[in-house]
């Protein structure tokens, strides 16, 4: 067991910002990230081995991220990369594993910045190779400069789809069409609220113009119905949907595609905040759970702060500001910032956050999550990708009396696989809600258990005391 003044988990925008601010105020910070290189998904860098390595930045945010990482390292933050935080014990003891060993760090303060992942939505054919998430497609193109296919169908909701389509076009792929689930009707109603955020709006318009220029059909109010193919995806069926993202029968259209990118929004990674015992609440606009926090970014567990997309998906600008605020809170808590200095700086950060959140709220309304998307799966559709449990098998458990996701788990093995229920949990909760006729918040969540990510027995056996 070792100790630390502050452990930051996650090296994306939120975690980097928290580490930078805390370190600037003299806090000794240990930053843990699962990837070999810091940056998270948004700042994901080109591999160092690509010629020019750190100097080659085809994307603006990669350059931004590089500067922030250099700054964090320059401030003396200790970085543990390629290390997975697989558990939190006794509120603030973080268990960290590399391929070879595991160690526990008793921290005075913990900042969780675990980020988010694409909302998994089961539909017939969603397990076929060639079907991939929007985040996965973006990583493949942004970091490795590899296209997921030549004729790509993009489905889902939100601005991330535009970014994915932009990368596809840049790489020379054909975007068969972009199916946005939200209707995007009556956008003029948001004009006055978007006025203070013209930079974001203009970025979106540039992407739309690029799509129009390439002749890509943008179909609003459309969802995926199924992916088809024998051993990999060769086509898909799409359909119109209602405002709750439920497909409308009789509107099906079939298209050819050799890759299907799916992105129905993002979900916060909550494994560590749940293991730490933090309270969470349902955020209807996001269609997911988020940890409760006070205005200092502190969770309901004293000394555990949660920032960025892992605390309710809000994007990189909000993540940077929240990370900064948590860094200030950590410094204040450890006595490195006096009350007066703290409140001045913290209030300025809160003001900037309020401004940014205005934009996020408009985005959340325009692309409001529709639970009807969970009606796409039929009984043969795989629900749990790891344990290969179908929707039909889960329904059987529900019809025999299960009323909670953990009961379905015990009866069918759904959620018992390597992904720890991240892929099936949200869809199962909606299935339970549908079958029991209760709100999704009553379905429960899988009991969090360490390890949050698989750890080898060899690493556990070599735990460093």
């Amino acid at each position, binding site marked *: 067991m070792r100790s630390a003044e502050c452990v930051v988990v996650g090296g994306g925008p939120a975690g980097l910002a928290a580490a930078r601010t805390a370190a600037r105020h003299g806090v000794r910070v240990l930053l843990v990230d*699962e*990837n*070999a290189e810091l940056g998270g*998904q948004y700042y994901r860098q*080109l*591999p*160092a*081995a*690509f*010629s*020019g390595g750190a100097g*080659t930045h*085809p994307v603006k945010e990669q350059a931004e991220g590089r500067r922030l990482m250099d700054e964090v390292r320059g401030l003396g933050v200790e970085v543990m990369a390629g290390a997975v935080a697989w558990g939190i014990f006794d509120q603030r003891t973080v268990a960290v594993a590399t391929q070879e060993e595991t160690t526990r760090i008793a921290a005075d303060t913990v900042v969780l910045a675990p980020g988010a*992942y*694409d909302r*998994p939505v089961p539909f017939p054919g969603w*397990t*076929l*190779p*060639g*079907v*991939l*998430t929007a*985040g*996965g*497609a*973006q*990583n*493949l*193109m942004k*970091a*490795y*400069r*590899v*296209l*997921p*296919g*030549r004729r790509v169908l993009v489905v889902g909701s939100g601005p991330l789809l535009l970014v994915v389509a932009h990368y596809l076009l*840049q*790489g*020379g792929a054909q975007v068969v069409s972009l199916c946005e689930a939200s209707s995007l009707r009556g956008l003029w109603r948001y004009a006055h609220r978007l006025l203070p955020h013209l930079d974001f709006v203009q970025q979106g318009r540039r992407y739309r113009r690029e799509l129009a220029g390439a002749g890509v059909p943008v179909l609003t109010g459309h969802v995926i119905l199924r992916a088809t193919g024998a*051993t*990999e995806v060769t086509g898909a069926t799409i359909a119109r949907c209602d405002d709750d993202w439920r497909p409308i029968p009789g509107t099906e259209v079939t298209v050819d595609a050799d890759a299907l990118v799916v992105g129905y929004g993002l979900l916060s*990674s909550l494994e560590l905040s749940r293991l730490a015992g933090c309270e969470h609440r349902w955020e209807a606009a996001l269609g997911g759970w988020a940890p409760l926090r006070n205005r200092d970014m502190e969770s309901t567990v004293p000394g555990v702060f949660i920032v960025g997309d892992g605390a309710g998906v809000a994007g990189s600008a909000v993540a940077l500001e929240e990370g900064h605020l948590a860094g200030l809170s950590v410094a204040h808590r450890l006595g490195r910032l006096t009350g007066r200095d703290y409140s001045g700086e913290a209030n300025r950060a809160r003001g900037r956050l309020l401004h940014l959140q205005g934009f996020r709220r408009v985005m959340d309304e325009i692309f409001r999550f529709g639970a009807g998307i969970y009606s796409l799966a039929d009984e043969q559709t*795989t629900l749990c*990708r*790891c*344990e*290969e449990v179908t929707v039909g098998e889960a329904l059987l458990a529900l019809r025999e009396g299960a009323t909670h996701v953990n009961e379905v788990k015990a009866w069918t093995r759904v959620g018992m*696989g*390597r*992904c720890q229920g*991240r*892929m099936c949990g949200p869809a199962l909760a909606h299935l339970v809600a549908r079958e029991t006729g209760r709100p999704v918040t009553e379905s429960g969540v899988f009991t969090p258990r360490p390890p949050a*990510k*698989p750890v080898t027995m060899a690493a556990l056996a070599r735990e460093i005391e």
Partner: protein
Amino acid sequence: MTQPDLRMSPPAERGRALTILVDGQPLGCHEGESIAAALLASGCRSTRVTARTAEPRGYFCGMGVCHDCLVTVDGLPNVRACMTPVRDGLRVEIQRGLGEWGGQS
């Protein structure tokens, strides 16, 4: 694996050329690429066959969350192809079922 290369940028911007073995067959790729990127770039999209229904699976979340792109690497099963960089001479096997230590499950 005969489809055209799906790499976006000119080869000069990549790491040095190296060779890995995929089910015993040599596959050219570049230092810095993940196993998943190297496989996908050459059109190899199934990284494993599932244990229960023998379905092909591949790269899905691309960020180490879904554990679907599992391969056997140098005899070690259940390695995430999206999180593991290639090395010259790396032995990758398309994983069948739960995989076996030593490979060739």
